[in-house]
């Protein structure tokens, strides 16, 4: 379990690319808080940060950093 720490000053925002769209969040935001902010509650989602899976068990530990590329996916209908 490695908790990352941002080097950006407190009170500032970090810029991310979230599901392909630019977005900014408060410094120190972690994955679980991001999901809550986005209104994603329940359902099975998976999160990828810079092409690496973020295990669900680490949602409350992994902090979002400047320039992160985040993907949030779920199951949808498909053949």
């Amino acid at each position, binding site marked *: 379990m490695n908790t990352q720490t941002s080097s950006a000053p407190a009170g500032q925002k970090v810029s991310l690319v979230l599901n392909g769209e630019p977005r900014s969040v408060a410094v120190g935001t972690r994955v679980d808080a991001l999901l809550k902010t986005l209104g994603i509650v329940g*359902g099975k989602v*998976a*999160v990828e940060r810079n092409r690496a899976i973020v295990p669900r068990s680490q949602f409350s530990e992994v902090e979002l950093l400047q320039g992160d590329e985040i993907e949030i996916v779920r*199951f*949808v*209908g498909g053949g």
Partner: protein
Amino acid sequence: MAQLEQCGGTSSDSWVVAGRTFHSRLIVGTGKYRDYQENADAAEAAGAEMVTVAVRRVNLTDPNEPMLVDYLKPDRFTFLPNTAGCFTGEDAVRTLRLAREAGDWNLVKLEVLSDPETLYPDMVETLRALEMLVADGFDVMVYASDDPVMARRLEDAGAAAIMPLGAPIGSGLGLQNKLNLRLIAEQAGVPVLVDAGIGTPSDAAIAMELGCDAVLLNTAIAEAQDPIGMARAMKLAVEAGRLAYLSGRMPTRKYGSASSPEHGKIS
């Protein structure tokens, strides 16, 4: 290997993929339906135990839109995550790693497509992706061309099931190469499923008569005028085809062979 014991019916007939036993030999997709409710009703009517699902970005502008899992419950259906829309091995592996994290299971469907027009599988990329996935601990059911040599390569590389196409995805053109499908089914030591191209129940019945272990289809039900009725028709066709395969069909002859006695005719 699928169980092929004679049973005189389909109730005790089952097949096994990657250690998981299924009684339904009809796997249905979850795309192209009017809504998830119709989809769930069709999956029930089909008697399906396994459904394919896709992995896509959460819609951030409407994160609370209807969710697949609210209608097709993961405790009722085994979800088979697919890699539909992937054109490289890396994309497919990335997609399935996300699927494994979202679903907490490792049975997946691999498909790596070659071009958007034919949706024909790129078997070189598919084989490469299969090797990566097997090394990463996945149980992989592989969408494939109907080439018996490639089917053997996939099995050698650790595929949990071989799923040759009957015809291009969504085409409804039926089984274009029954000879190859039969060869693949005969030689394989893992389950063989016809995946893609089935347009109508007789196609599904023929796939089963050829010795396939199951069929996987989506559009033939979803785009029927009455998807629920068609789902039931597909269920019956798969059961009929399976029972016919187990029962052993009559030999074909070039000429007629009378069924009534020659002796005792009144004239």
